[in-house]
Each structure stands twice: as C-alpha cells, then as structure tokens.
C-alpha cells in the first residue's frame, strides 16, 4: 500500500520541510506536519494531489499516554483520495491550545463544524475560523470535557436555550439582508418537533413562505459517547455503539469491532464474516425503511408509513429472536459474535425479505408515479457532486448526486467484491434522488443477503484466541482455567498494543469510521467516530435556502439525519 502512495508523500514532505512520515495506521500513512506549514500542505493535498474528501479531524489529549509525546495535544486530519481508495492522515502537534492551528474551512467547507467540535471539546483554537463557537455542549458550559483532566461526570446546568440570532444574522448579512429592515420573520424548526426528527434545531428567516437564510444548532443529543469509551473496555463499548445510529445498531457494532480487530491484526472465521454481512445488510434495509417511512409520513403519505413500518417490525421480531433485543442488539463481539444463528433462522429471514419487498413494491405503486409526490420532492434542494464531496458527504446522500462511491465496491471488505450487486446512483442530488436511491438500495441489500445465505459456510463464529474471545460456557463452568480466563477477560478487557488506527465501513448513512488510539490496556485512550450524519447536517442550512418550509422538512427527512450518531 505504502509504495502506491509514495509520490504523494514525497510531494507533501517537499511542501512542508519540517514534516516526516511518522508511521502507518493500517494502510494509511501518518505524516507529522508542523502547525505553521499545515495550511499550505493541506491546500496542496486537495488541489494538487486530489485528496478531495476530508473524512474527519480528531483531537487528542495525550496526557497520561504511556508513550512519550512532544506536546500534550495534537490533531489528526484524515483525507480520502479522489480514487476513493487511498487515505492519508496528517498529525499536527499543538503547542498551545490557545494558538491552536489554522482553520482549513476555506479549503474544505466541511471542516467548519469539525473544528468547532474540537474547540468545544478540547479548547483548541483555529485561527480565522468563521464561527468558532461551542457546538455540542451548551453555551453556559465551562471547561473542555474531552480533556483528560475533566472529570467524566461533572455536569453543568444549562438554564436556557440560546436564541441563535447571532448565527442567523451572520447568514443574513452575507446576503445583505436584515431581519428588521427587510421585514423577515425568524422561525424555529425544532428542537422538539417530530418533523425535526427529535432534537435537531434549525432557525430560518422567512420572506413569506420562502427561507432566505438559516442556521442549525445541534448537540441536544450529545451523550458523551467518546468520553464514555475512555472509561470502558473494548467489549463494554459495543452497547454504546448501538446507540449511535439506533436505526441500524448492528452496523455500528460491526464498524467498531472491525476497527479493533484490525488493530489486533486478527482474521475472523468466514462464518462470522458472512453472518456480519447478512446482519449489516438487514440493518441497512431497516434503516432505509425507517427513513423512507418517516419522510413519507412527514409529507402526509401515511399509508406508506404502515406499508414500510410493518415489515420493519417483522425484521425486529427476527432480531429479537436472534439477539434478545429489538433495537439495541449488542450482538457483535471483538473477534466474532455473541452467538451463532438459531435453528430455523433461514425461513424467518426469507419471510422478512419477502415482506420487505412487498412493502417496497406497494409503496412504489403509490408514490413512484404519483404527481403529488413528484412535485413535492423533485428539484428540491439539489446538491452538486463537488459541493457534496467538499462537505464530506458519503453514502446514499452522495450517491444521489451521481457520485459512484460505495465502500463495499471501492474499498471492499468482508468479501463484498464477491457479491453481485449494483451501486445505485442518482442524477442531480435532489430530495427525490435521495429517497429513490434508498428504495433501490433496499432491493440490492436483499440481493446480497440472498447470496450470503446460500454461501454461508459452516464452522466457528469466533476467532480462536483466549486472550480475545471468551471460552465456551462449558469450559467456564467446568474448568478452573476457563473460569479464570472468563474472569480476566471480562474485568481487564482485551489488551490492544499502543497504536493509532482508522477503519470504516459503508453504513446505512455513509462512511461510518472509528479512529481508535489504544494504550496497551483493555481500555482505549481515545475513540473518535466519523459520523456521516454530522457532516450531512452541516450542509443542511445551505441546502434549504431558497425553498419553502415544507420543502425543508422533506430535505431533512431525505438526508436521514440520526441525532444519536450526529451528536454522539
């Protein structure tokens, strides 16, 4: 892998003379760059070397880390190349949080919220950032919660919600408008309204029915996932990952477990991989069903809600039979699965696939050629491929713009290259495309599951290493070694040698990635989620400008923003 990218690395080292190739995170080279040279290096990276997607920015506090670090804080920037295969990481040591680093928002507009988050959580400043303000925590919050010396359970009371007029006025000013003078009406969409999907708030300035400017506020469902990870063992984190995108919990389990497994450098038995593929695709189906059902309901098309929700319920019956829970399954373990499939699963699953297909067919009969539906969603809030990539779009929302990027096809993992399925793309990235891509993806996922059922090999479901997976219960109850083994693994956790790693899968909403920094113990030093919804939401205020309030609701529904994943 390294040799394929050596030209890019050479180029970067030239631009930034003080930089050095520090190491690799799997197949991703990690380059150390001086804060002063960061801006130019990243500019070159995008404009000359074609790393068009900014994946994530990770803040790190190295306090108490076993290996000596130059500075207490550093940032890791992750970029993906235009070929959708290569990833590069840049690390910048932060000498003084207050001086921080240069903002790269002018290069990648998607960096805006990512930098704000780091400011909010670590107190690291970004020079010439357009709006450096807290984003996840409330404005009355003091201190920086992700710093290692901030006590995890020190809560701070928030007495009132901010009015957001400062951000709205800024947006209006860009267009030379003023609330008072131009007689515009500010209106809050959310945070507590079903059409705002729970906890998302957007304030809009209205000229009649038309939105002329808007700003979004997130963080209402910030639940401290990343900090919690630093206090739990790797397997204890699995239940927390369930609750990121709770519409497809299993996929989060898989993305996390896969990252840790890569750090441990272990290969799963094939049976576990195939079961994971089946469950991941089933989760994708459920996720898309919920998104479509809710979006159509927002539009008043209630019948479709029943058509799509009922098969989803059947899928939940299957999952609760298999995993014991309908929604929050926690079924994956590092190194394998909690259990194997139960007797008779195949018939149950086939039945669900049949019902899902029927639900989708019936819905499409109602909407595909329906004039009202078409008029409501076509040409609403389109986004160009270039803009979408700059904002860090991935998954169905990016494919809707016509960009043929699906990690299952471009960076295949879990034998996805051996399955026969199509990558579905739209044409103009409007609300219609975003919804239709999801309909079609449901059918493709059904196709993958059917192939996986046929190809499912027999054998073990867990990697056979007692320092990673639990011994069988018969051993635990009958031998002293088994008991001790179980005890140690549960209490101390799986030990992961110190390293930095990023890995991702194609989740229902896009590239769901985890950056994990291990420190040799059973608990990670730092976990950062690359949450697709976070980046999609960032584009939302711009996307709805020029459209009506009713369109804005549909756009939000079609982006499928899941607050748990966005706010973490």
């Amino acid at each position: 892998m390294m040799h394929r990218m050596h030209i890019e690395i050479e180029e970067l080292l030239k631009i930034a003379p003080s930089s050095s190739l520090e190491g690799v995170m799997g197949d991703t080279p990690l380059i150390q760059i001086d804060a002063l040279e960061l801006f130019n290096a990243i500019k070159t990276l995008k404009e000359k070397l074609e790393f068009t997607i900014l994946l994530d920015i990770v803040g790190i506090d190295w306090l108490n880390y076993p290996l000596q670090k130059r500075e207490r804080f550093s940032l890791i920037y992750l970029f993906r190349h235009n070929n959708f295969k290569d990833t590069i990481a840049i690390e910048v040591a932060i000498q003084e949080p207050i001086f921080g680093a240069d903002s790269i928002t002018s290069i990648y507009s998607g960096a805006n919220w990512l930098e704000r988050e780091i400011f909010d959580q670590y107190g690291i400043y970004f020079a010439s950032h357009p709006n450096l303000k807290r984003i996840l925590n409330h404005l009355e919050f003091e201190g920086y919660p992700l710093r290692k010396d901030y006590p995890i359970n020190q809560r701070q009371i928030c007495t009132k919600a901010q009015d957001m007029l400062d951000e709205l006025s800024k947006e209006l000013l860009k267009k030379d408008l003023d609330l008072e003078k131009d007689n515009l009406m500010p209106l809050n969409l959310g945070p507590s309204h079903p059409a705002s999907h729970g906890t998302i708030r957007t304030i809009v300035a209205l000229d009649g029915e038309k939105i002329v400017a808007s700003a979004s506020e997130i963080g209402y469902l910030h639940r401290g996932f990343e900090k919690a990870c630093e206090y739990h063992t790797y397997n204890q984190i699995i239940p927390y990952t369930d609750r990121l995108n709770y519409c497809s919990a299993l996929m989060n389990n898989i993305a996390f477990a896969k990252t840790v497994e890569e750090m441990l450098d272990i290969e799963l038995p094939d049976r576990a991989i195939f079961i994971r593929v089946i469950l991941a695709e089933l989760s994708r189906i459920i996720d898309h069903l919920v998104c479509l059902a809710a979006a159509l309901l927002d539009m008043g098309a209630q019948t479709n809600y029943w058509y799509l929700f009922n098969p989803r319920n059947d899928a939940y019956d299957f999952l609760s039979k298999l995993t014991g829970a309908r929604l929050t399954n926690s079924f994956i373990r590092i190194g394998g699965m909690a259990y194997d499939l139960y007797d008779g699963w195949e018939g149950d699953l086939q039945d669900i696939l049949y019902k899902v297909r029927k639900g989708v067919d019936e819905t499409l009969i109602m909407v595909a050629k329906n004039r009202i539906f078409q008029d409501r969603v076509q040409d609403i809030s389109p986004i160009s491929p270039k803009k979408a990539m700059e904002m860090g779009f991935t998954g169905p929302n990016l494919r809707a713009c016509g960009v043929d990027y699906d990690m299952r096809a471009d960076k295949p993992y879990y034998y996805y290259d051996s399955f026969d399925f199509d990558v579905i793309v739209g044409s103009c990235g409007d609300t219609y495309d975003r919804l239709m891509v999801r309909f079609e993806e449901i059918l493709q996922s059904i196709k993958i599951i059917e192939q996986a059922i046929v190809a499912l090999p027999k054998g073990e479901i867990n990697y056979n290493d007692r320092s990673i997976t639990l011994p069988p219960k018969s051993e635990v109850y009958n031998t002293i070694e088994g008991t001790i083994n179980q005890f140690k693994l549960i209490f101390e956790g799986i030990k992961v040698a110190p390293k930095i790693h990023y890995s991702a899968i194609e989740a229902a909403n896009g590239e769901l990635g985890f950056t994990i920094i291990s420190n040799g113990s059973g608990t990670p030093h730092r976990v950062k989620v690359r949450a697709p919804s976070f980046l999609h939401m960032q584009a939302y205020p711009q996307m709805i400008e020029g459209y009506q309030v009713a369109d804005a609701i549909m756009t939000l529904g079609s982006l499928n923003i899941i607050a748990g994943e966005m706010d973490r």
Partner: protein
Amino acid sequence: MDLSSDEHLLGDSIITTKVDAVIDWGRQSSLWPFVFGTACCAIEFMATAASRYDIARFGAEVLRFSPRHADLLVVAGTVSMKQAPILKQIYDQMPEPRWVISMGACASSGGFYDNYTTLQGIDEIVPVDVYVAGCPPRPEALLDAVMQIQKMLWSEPALEPRHPNFKSIYDA
C-alpha cells in the same frame, strides 16, 4: 335537592354519579400524548403508535405536537443538560391536569450515560408519574404505562392540581 332516595323514580333516562367519576371516566380514554422523543426510545414509540401495537386501542392515539393540546407527556429518550430547559418549557406549557411517563432507562435515570452531558433522570426537571424500565422498553411496556396512568387517574380528585409541591433543579 337530594334525589338519592328517589333515584328509582327517574327510570333509565338519568344516571346520577359524582363529578369526579364522570370527569375521570372521560379523561381515561382520551389521553392526548405529547411525545418528547429525543433518541432511540422514540423509535420504539413510533412502533407503539404504528399498526402492530396500535396505541389507539387505549384511546391515546391523538398525538399532539403542541404541548398546549396535550395532557400526557411521554419523554422517550436521553435528555441532555442542553435539552433540559426545553423539556421544562414544554411541561410548563401543558395545561393541568397533566401526566408524565418517563420512557426508558435514560429518561428515568440517565441510563448508562453517567457523564458530563446527561441529565440523571427527568424527575430533576418534571414530576414523573410512571417510569418504564428498558433500554429501550418494548412497545408492550409503554402500553402498560399508559394503562397505569389510566388506573391512577381514577383514584385522583379531578379538579385539584397534581404535584403542587414539586421542585425542579431550576427552582433551587
């Protein structure tokens, strides 16, 4: 005029009862829920409202998204410190009498989010009538909570404020 001894004279056309009883009877099957859905639990609320579990069977299907129209607040999901003032505002906007169901571990106690952002139970903000265990609770459990409220409502005086002495963290 006391008619109780002559009730038989009135035949089938008139029923005499207590005011409390007739009001509670009416309220019982027409609870209008406001769903304060924030997280995963809200997804299970959606399932409860959908056709399989069908909350309409218990007379509570008229979901209102204006708190001024609602008398049953269902808090479904994690409430962060940032969200707390909004929950309080919504509760304050609901007219009396009002009931509160705390759905799930998070709403009831903060769940497994014992950290810097999460409110450790909504009863620090609003008085709770029924707590539902689970993460998330199954739809059946939520239906059971609605039935608990219906039962509870029978034994309460119809015209008196509920929880007059409740203090939230904001009143301290």
